[in-house]
């Protein structure tokens, strides 16, 4: 068996059959673990799917989680196209939350929603991009590996925010480590609210207009990465840095801008959480969303369509998993983290593992 060789499968099979097989492998191992701890995998699967899609509220929560994952998934993919592995999504989302909070603290009493919300969007992107800029700069100019620096930046962000929460941001007299609630003008309109404009009665979930922003980002991402000069430079740098340099592309500029692009996308996830759901920033709002983005991008093969689908998968896993953990006290929500890890392993590190097994099927046909 030969691994690590260029793929011989048709493109559509590479994009559909292999990820599907990887997903099945990950779920099979999960089923083994479920079975080993004395639960029925099939029953759990039904509960999980039912929890994610079986009722209105479940669907709302699934799509709410999906929205965040689309942002962080796109962020990881943006860096990937330049050959960079941005593990710093978590820190970038965290710092972007600070940007949103500062914008709200400054303007939420004065400005109306149509002006305030764009300002918070820009603030989130600017803060996310700024936090990704330094690792990008250091990679481009100093050759320090972006993976290690972004890991360090996650810890630095956590310490910085820990300090700010304790000393500056925490609401006076509040019991949680959270900021004060923002004025209503800063709330992202929820689906329930938007539904009432059209006379629809939708369940009360945190699902909000950020979903539309996420989908717009997908289209823009596709446009920028595949249909712009800069996107071409980005992908060339990612494919072959030396060739890119030889072709006159400024690799260091591409690297820095790609990291900022990535950080800005990650930053938007903070808007979904902070302005869409809690309407205040609390200490643990990121909750691993940056790491899920890695799995989403790998599973979606760094393409917006794939990312939307895999973000939906992970959104469903998160929501269904929470429901499942309520029904089955033996299965905690960490099971979902475990599944994420398996999917990252199979879809990212072992992406073509099953190719040698299915390649003969395709050869016979052609």
């Amino acid at each position, binding site marked *: 068996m030969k*691994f690590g060789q260029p793929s011989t499968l048709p493109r559509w099979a590479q994009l559909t059959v292999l990820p599907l097989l990887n997903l099945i492998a990950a779920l099979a191992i999960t089923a083994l673990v479920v079975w080993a701890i004395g639960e029925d995998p099939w029953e759990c699967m039904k509960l999980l799917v039912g929890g994610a899609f079986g009722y209105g509220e479940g669907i709302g929560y699934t799509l709410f989680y999906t929205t965040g994952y689309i942002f962080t998934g796109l962020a990881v993919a943006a860096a990937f196209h330049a050959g960079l592995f941005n593990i710093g999504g978590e820190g970038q989302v965290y710092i972007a939350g600070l940007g949103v909070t500062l914008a709200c603290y400054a303007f939420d009493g004065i400005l109306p929603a149509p002006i305030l919300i764009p300002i918070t969007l820009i603030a989130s992107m600017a803060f996310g991009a700024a936090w990704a800029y330094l690792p990008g700069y250091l990679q481009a100019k100093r050759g320090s590996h972006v993976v290690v620096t972004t890991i*360090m930046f996650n810890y630095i962000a956590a310490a910085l925010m820990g300090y700010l929460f304790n000393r500056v941001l925490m609401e006076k007299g509040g019991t949680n480590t959270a900021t004060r609630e923002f004025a209503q003008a800063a709330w992202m309109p929820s689906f329930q609210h938007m539904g009432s404009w059209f006379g629809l009665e939708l369940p009360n979930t945190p699902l909000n207009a950020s979903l539309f922003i996420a989908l717009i980002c997908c289209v823009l991402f596709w446009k920028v990465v595949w249909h712009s000069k800069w996107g071409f430079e980005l992908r060339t740098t990612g494919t072959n840095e030396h060739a890119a340099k030889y072709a006159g592309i400024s690799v260091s500029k591409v690297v820095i801008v790609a990291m900022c692009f990535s950080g800005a996308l990650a930053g938007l996830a903070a808007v979904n959480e902070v302005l869409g759901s809690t309407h205040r920033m609390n200490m643990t709002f990121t909750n691993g969303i940056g790491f899920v983005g890695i799995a989403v991008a790998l599973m979606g093969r760094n393409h917006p369509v794939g990312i939307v689908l895999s973000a939906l998968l992970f959104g469903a896993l998160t929501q269904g998993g929470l429901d499942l953990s309520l029904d089955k006290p033996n299965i905690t929500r960490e099971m979902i983290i475990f599944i994420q*890890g398996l999917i990252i392993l199979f879809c990212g590190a072992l992406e073509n593992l099953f190719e040698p097994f299915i390649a003969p099927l395709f050869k016979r046909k052609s």
Partner: protein
Amino acid sequence: MDLLFSILESTIRAATPLMLAALAGLFSERSGVVDISLEGKILFAAFASASAAYVSGSPWVGMLAGMGVAVMLAMVHGFVSVTYNGNQLISGMAINIIASGLTPVLGLAWFQQGGNTPQLESEMRFREIHWPGEEMMQNVPVLGQFYNHILSGHSIIVYMTIVIIPVVTWFIYRSRFGLRVRAVGENPHAADTAGVSVAKIRYTALFWGGLLCGLAGTYLSVYQTGSFIREMSAGKGFLALAALIFGKWRPVPAVIGCLLFAFFDAIQIRLEGVALPIVGEVPSQFIQVIPYVLTVLLMAGFVGRATAPKAIGVPFVKSR
């Protein structure tokens, strides 16, 4: 003086798992395999050793289980990095996430204590070894405190680590295997031409790294806290990685890096809420963050260039 010695004592305690993990990373990275999965291996080993020690009643069985599990994870990493030529960073990340997800799931299912393991009875865990004559030394100034706090009163794993450090240094620089590890990490094609099996050396290096991570995890759960607590590795694997970079992939400087980081940790706990002259009260987060900031500065070449092994992270494909 008392304060100084108690800070040094906590430094040794906090540095032990870091040093073991940093040496584990050294084996792997010197052979050319990036290992950001130290964190996951420590965490899973801590869980396995605490579980096994609880079930068997022996800390030694726990240690074996911890090492076994960490080696298994190292072999998964080896399969991806060496056999399959996959992305080593993604593999490492996946192992970390798998460990942080699976340990509480298994913990809850087996012990029903919210994902932690039950507190180990005193015969199930490693205890502090008190050297003879501690009481006598109590009254001797300085030397007595040195004897009681620094030399005596640690777990067996601390003493093992003190032996392991020179052994690993010798292994890497003086042994045949160490020479091959370094050769494979710097120039696998040359090593291959010279008849060295790159795959075999890398798997072996990962194996030793797994054993050391297992020991680090055992130290946390079977000695330090006496039970497994979720996420108890708390970034130690990444801190060890930072120390490894800090030490420029050399064993003794890496160990010194670990001691330095552990020292920051020890003084940070002491400084909590204490007002210092001139600067006033230093927020604990500022001290916590020092190792990470140092690593970034070091990697950026501001403190001195950290040169990684040349073939690090690059899958080896035999040339024709």
